């Protein structure tokens, strides 16, 4: 088995200062904020108020803020979103606030920025917001906007639904190298819709889905690209999520004030971030001699494992992974190492990734079940990881969850961020 990157890299377990997660808040992803005629600042305001209520954090203690957003200029005709964080509450006026963009990985990259500032000792408390209001336009127009997350001129211009096509080609690559049966993709869709029914913030919690529906091609489940069907896709979602990260010193005081032990508060144990060539074909050409299809995704996962002292995937209790399409989750299963490369189907067939399986994938419902407001997704994944480790995920709580991995990818797995959350 070939591991392209690891032998030459010097990776050590993370010895930087710990960064704690104090909590956060997610909007109901089933909402259509455009129908309510709401401005994006209303979403930001709600996640600030909700997050403050959840964490009992004095708003004056926030030192800085980051907002993750992919395409506010296109969807809502609004740039300079960093400034809108301050608009959410006048008490924040004056703090540094920054917008971060990395397509679907914007949320994770914003969190990494916050972590860097906390570890550098510059800030004690950083507020991270992920927000995207996508229902302002129809599906066709929205898919053109999303095409900006690929190499637009080469991969998306004048192409209908470019991203289903790119992730449809991921299925083709698996098919060519290892063979793939689409019933396993349907099983992923069925699982994530079923998990979402436990999640009160999930967009699809009241939708109907069955394996038969997901595995049937027809009037109600047409092919979008290659082998990908409508039910293999995540949805257009309006949503925002907030997260409050803090230094060790601040968290100690916060814990004492609320009669908690520092050890009981979840923290970020480690992460990996990689950037692959933008073009999908180039990624695939580079991986032709490797066992893994998306080398840089695998690399991000291994980096996160190494930095957080995770030996392998079986050290984890669950994974919140990027399933913008079922093919992305199929890829994540072998890239996390649950199976040998190309054999993700075994973990699906054996129920390993099911809610009650040995290593559940997306107990929240993932992007397919919860929804995928592009800029907010990475923050949502970390908030769900926090809830699991904090034992506050309620109906979608995985028993005794102590260590959770997230995988958030931007573009066609161009920006890859894997994080490990634990105590």
């Amino acid at each position, binding site marked *: 088995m070939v591991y392209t990157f690891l032998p030459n890299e010097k990776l050590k377990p993370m010895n930087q200062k710990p960064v704690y997660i104090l909590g956060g*808040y997610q*909007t*109901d992803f089933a*909402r259509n904020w455009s*129908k*309510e*005629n*709401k*401005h994006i*600042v*209303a*979403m*930001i*305001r*709600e*996640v600030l*108020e*909700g997050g403050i*209520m959840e964490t009992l954090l004095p708003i004056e203690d926030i030192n800085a803020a980051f907002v993750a957003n992919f395409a506010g200029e296109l969807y809502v005709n609004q740039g300079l979103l960093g400034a809108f964080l301050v*608009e*959410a509450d006048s008490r924040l006026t004056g703090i540094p606030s920054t917008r971060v963009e990395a397509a679907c990985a914007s949320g994770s990259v914003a969190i990494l920025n916050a972590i860097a500032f906390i570890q550098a000792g510059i800030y004690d408390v950083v507020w991270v917001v992920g927000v995207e209001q996508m229902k302002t336009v129809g599906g066709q127009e929205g898919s053109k906007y999303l095409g900006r997350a690929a190499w637009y001129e080469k991969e998306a211009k004048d192409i209908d639904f470019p991203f289903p096509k790119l992730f449809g080609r991921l299925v083709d690559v698996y098919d060519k190298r290892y063979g793939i049966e689409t019933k396993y993709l349907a099983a992923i869709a069925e699982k994530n819709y079923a998990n979402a029914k436990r999640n009160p913030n999930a967009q699809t919690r009241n939708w109907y889905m069955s394996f038969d529906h997901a595995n049937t091609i027809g009037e109600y489940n047409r092919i979008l690209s290659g082998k990908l069907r409508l039910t293999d896709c995540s949805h257009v979602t309006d949503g925002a999520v907030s997260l409050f990260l803090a230094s060790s010193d601040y968290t100690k005081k916060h814990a004492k004030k609320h009669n908690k032990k520092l050890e009981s508060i979840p923290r970020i144990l480690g992460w990996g971030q990689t950037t692959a060539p933008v073009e999908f074909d180039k990624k695939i050409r580079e991986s032709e001699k490797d066992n893994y299809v998306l080398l840089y995704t695998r690399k991000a996962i291994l980096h996160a494992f190494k930095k957080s002292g995770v030996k392998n995937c079986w050290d984890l209790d669950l994974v919140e992974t990027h399933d913008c399409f079922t093919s992305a989750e199929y890829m994540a299963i072998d890239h996390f190492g649950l199976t040998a490369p190309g054999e993700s189907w075994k973990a699906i067939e054996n129920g390993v990734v099911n809610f009650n399986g040995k290593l559940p994938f997306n107990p929240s419902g993932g992007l397919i079940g919860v929804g995928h407001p592009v800029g907010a997704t990475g923050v949502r994944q970390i908030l769900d990881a926090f809830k699991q480790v904090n034992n506050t995920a309620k109906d979608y709580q995985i028993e005794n969850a102590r260590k959770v991995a997230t995988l958030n990818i931007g573009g066609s797995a161009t920006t890859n961020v894997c994080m490990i959350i634990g105590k």
Partner: protein
Amino acid sequence: MTHIVDGKSDEFMLPHFINTMVELGRLGNKTPDKGGFYKRKYDKSKTVLNIKSFTYASVSCVKIPFVEQAKQYIREGRYFDAFTEIKKSSEKKADFIRKILCSYVAYSFACVGEVTHKKYGIELIDKAMAYGFNWAPPTLIMQLFGGKKEIIPLLKHYSIEIPNSLLEFSELPLFNPRHGIYFLAK
């Protein structure tokens, strides 16, 4: 209407102009040639019924400053500010809105012990209004008006009977940010 047992039965009666509309055969979409609340002209332009004269007039887009400001606040998620606009406006239209909302709060509290068991207090009425009708829960309206201390004088001002359950009500829950869903900026 006699089969309805409700303290507000009289208010459920159809206003006279509806009866007149029915007599005139102005049944809306069922009678497009005669119209209803609205009527399309031959050029498809829309006209609206004047309920005093029963004639149709061109639809004019009326912009009421305090309503526009409240809508803008709602659009930005500033729900308390939106209600402050409604509270402070001296316009007759604002008075009408305040009275309707106060009546809603009083009516809801009056239902405690009748529609739901008294031991559940206003909580179940809140749920019935929110999940059953998709309306803002009555305690949310009360909260946005400034709580019990502000709504009771308003009820007195509008000569609306104050239910005992409201007088006995002691605590308002914290404002739930998710409740913004009940307010549309249009």
